[in-house]
């Protein structure tokens, strides 16, 4: 008797008062509903796309829709890849090539400039860095027209250079890496200098290996931005054999979207498949990176 009342009254102080609140429970329940509801809404179009890409093209518009594959018509994927008119896998290589080059170039130029601005003393350094900071405020939409004229006058229209060159560096990347280099302890560099390391060696063998998270965040988002870039190819590329995925898919929809939903969706699946794999493998880095780069922007 005494023990039961004891256990019943003991936690009244905090827990039960906290637990009893109706509002709390209602709020919790609504949050769960929202979370699960939104998660379903976010993933449903993608699972619908996957399921429909596996339907026989004859039934591709049939209702009710599938959110889980009911047919396994993998031929759609083969049809897209082996299409006689369009060399679909060429878009893959174009997208990949450009994204890799742009990512490598940005990591290199941004980390080099980050080292210069964060760690070296030279005349005009702060003014030059100020230029980079100021250019962070310039939105891409505004420089679109003159960039087009510049690319055109450099005779780079309809080449991949038109997509690579404007992206070889980014003010944001310079800023991000400069902050990271600046935060490393001075003793580390002093020790390296005493060991006789030159500037190149300090940069390559000491600073870079210590900047892993910032470099990978910058690398991931540069790669994604390049892979998903639509305006660039829209402006600069004319021929099918130069196209990257986003522009190719938007154009293909015009040709065959009304007739064959399944094959268009199979094409989109192929184009986002690398992103899916990448995301599942590196989710923690990507989500952290989004927060880091976002919060520092």
């Amino acid at each position: 008797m005494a023990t039961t009342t004891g256990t019943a009254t003991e936690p009244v102080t905090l827990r039960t008062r906290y637990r009893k609140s109706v509002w709390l429970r209602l709020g919790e329940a609504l949050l769960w509903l929202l979370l699960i509801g939104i998660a379903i809404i976010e993933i449903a179009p993608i699972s619908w796309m996957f399921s429909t890409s596996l339907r026989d093209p004859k039934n591709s518009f049939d209702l009710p829709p599938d959110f889980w594959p009911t047919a396994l018509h993998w031929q759609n994927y083969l049809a897209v890849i082996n299409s006689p008119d369009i060399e679909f896998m060429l878009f893959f290589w174009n997208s990949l090539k450009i994204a890799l080059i742009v990512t490598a170039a940005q990591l290199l130029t941004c980390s080099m400039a980050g080292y210069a601005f964060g760690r070296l003393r030279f005349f005009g350094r702060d003014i030059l860095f100020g230029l980079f900071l100021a250019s962070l405020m310039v939105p891409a939409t505004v420089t679109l027209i003159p960039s087009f004229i510049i690319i055109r006058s450099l005779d780079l229209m309809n080449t991949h250079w038109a997509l690579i060159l404007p992206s070889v560096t980014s003010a944001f990347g310079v800023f991000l890496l400069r902050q990271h280099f600046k935060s490393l302890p001075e003793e580390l560099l002093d020790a390296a200098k005493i060991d006789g390391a030159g500037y190149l060696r300090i940069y390559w063998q000491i600073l870079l290996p210590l900047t892993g998270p910032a470099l990978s965040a910058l690398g991931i988002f540069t790669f994604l931005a390049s892979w998903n870039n639509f305006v660039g190819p829209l402006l600069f590329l004319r021929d099918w054999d130069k196209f990257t995925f986003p522009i190719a898919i938007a154009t293909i929809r015009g040709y065959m979207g009304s007739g064959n939903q399944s094959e268009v969706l199979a094409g989109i699946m192929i184009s986002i498949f690398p992103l899916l794999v990448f995301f599942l493998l590196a989710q923690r880095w990507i989500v952290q990176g989004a927060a880091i780069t976002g919060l520092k922007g």
Partner: protein
Amino acid sequence: MTSTALPDDKIDRQANPQKGTTLARREAWAGYLFATPALLGLLTFTALPIIASLVLIFLHYDLLTPPKWAGVENLTRLTSDSRLFKVYWNSLRLTVGATLLNNVLGLLLAVGLNRAMPWGLRYLLRTSIFFPVMTTTASLAVVWRFLLTQDRGVVNFLIGQIGLDPVPWLSSSAWALFSAMIYDVWKACGYLMVIYLAGLQGIPAVYYEAARIDGAGFWQQFRNVTLPLISPTAFFAIVISLIGAFQIFDNVYVLTEGGPGDASRVIAMYIYEKAFRGFEMGYASAVSFTLFVILITLTLLQFLGARRWVHYE
């Protein structure tokens, strides 16, 4: 590795870097060399375009014939361009709607996800909600175009199941811009969620403990602890949402093509069309200059306003 091999004079200079001018000069050279690639990129593809666009505003240029001086014609034309007002009105509605929804949803989702739950469930929810952020805006707009088709579209089928009439999502001027907003929120709210999640995780747990000891319930904790301490994050998130949403292009270009009529045409699309369909580079530059002014104001607001109403810990 071994430091014993250093010649004496080198050690001397390392000890007083200010004294040895050669070393200072070498450091300066290294600085310029390391900064050069990025600097070249910046000058060619940001600085030069800005200067060029300021010049273009005062020119008539159609890419084919040499540019002609236009004086302030392009600027005066801005004030009499009724389509420009229509397009800006669309942009404003889309921007405000998308920013509001993205941030409210992003914050609520982050609060929801920041609670105790099994690791696997958290992973599943976060993955599902964040993945659309990574996908290609233009390609997924193609998917949404299929989904929102009026007659055989999936969305209309689903709302038909609960007894509602089909909605002309893309073909009616009353709905097209709303559809673009839905698509943007679908695409971006996961990004806002991640930003708010990082903000929430920066709030020390002791505040919640203190609030709980004082008897604060769920709503009171949210109102009195979470909201004030998340305000720096929220301010930042709202400003980048506004800046991003004002520049929406891929979304409407593929989803509605700006139509029907001008019903969902937004400012970035209008600039694109004036410049690359109409080849009016001068006037398009003048229009993009107005956008520049708006966006730079928002950016400065971020720098200045943050101090005013944001509550720091």
